[in-house]
């Protein structure tokens, strides 16, 4: 059976989204725990959370760019 390239790329993108979603959800949950325990540290926690999310997002976007290259560059 011949596997369609577009389907494989979509599957890969879905896997990456899954992983990045898990990672960001873990950060968000931990940040909420932290803010609930120490509301006065909310600003620091929020800043750190955004940085960590951006780093994970960066990895996900690497894969998005690779997927786009696979789709558009024949």
């Amino acid at each position, binding site marked *: 059976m011949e596997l369609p390239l577009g389907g494989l790329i979509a599957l890969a993108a879905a896997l990456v989204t899954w992983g990045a979603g898990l990672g960001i959800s873990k950060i968000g949950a931990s940040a909420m725990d932290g803010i609930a325990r120490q509301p006065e540290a909310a600003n620091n926690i929020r*800043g750190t959370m*955004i*940085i960590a999310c*951006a780093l994970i*997002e*960066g990895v996900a*976007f*690497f894969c*998005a*760019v690779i997927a*786009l290259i696979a789709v*558009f560059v024949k």
Partner: protein
Amino acid sequence: MSSSPSHTSDAAHGAAEGDDKIQAFQDFLAHHVMDSHHWELPFLDIHTPAFITVHGIMLLIGTAFLCLLFGVVYKRKDDVPRGMTNLLESFIIFVRDEISIANLGEEDGRKFTPFFCSMFFFVLMLNLMGLIPLFSTATSNLAVTAALSMITLGAIISMGIARHGALGFLKSFAPPGVPLAVLVILYPIEILGTFIKAFALTIRLFANMLAGHIVIFSILGMVLLFGALVALPAALLATAIYFLEIFVAFLQAYIFVLLSSMFIGASLHPEH
């Protein structure tokens, strides 16, 4: 059996039509997202000369607008800032206190504030210009984001050497208190890491801005695939994504400058 030839030709015809639609969809997407030498305005088609593309023009317009904003509109002489000056000043204070001083320390932070402010407002302006109809996003061009993060990389290296000397800068890659055997593996990774940081900065801004626009135009492009019935839901959904994009434009400008300041701060004050 007599129906089978006509059936196959129908299927072939349908497939060809589907291919046409997908081709039209891809052309629509590429036309709105990719860089080109052709800038379409309502009553005017501008064909740009060979040395500049549409994204290059966007860079020039953004720069001109920023010069206008800070040269003419921004009044630093007023005792009490009003209107636009007030808005701009709140951004500048934010960049100074939350980004520059927070990551570089009080003394260096004040010195670097103009640099980070320039970078922040430039990236923000380009991101927001991409959301204005008829304009295109210069930051969804890999060359533009690469050039911006090369400035950061240059600042990391040059400031590190200026502060600690060439030898001290090379030494700052080695974390203190690590045994020699581990250091042999760790040292090349740390040096490589500096370049990977800049590369990640490039890809992050580029992919964020490109992905947002691809989502918007993919949703609008559904009209090409599924006909006029989906036009209204597609337009509403695209509008919702558009508002998300405004937030992303600010967030990515902030993230880009924040990470730049963290990297430059780590190069100025290692072992923190």
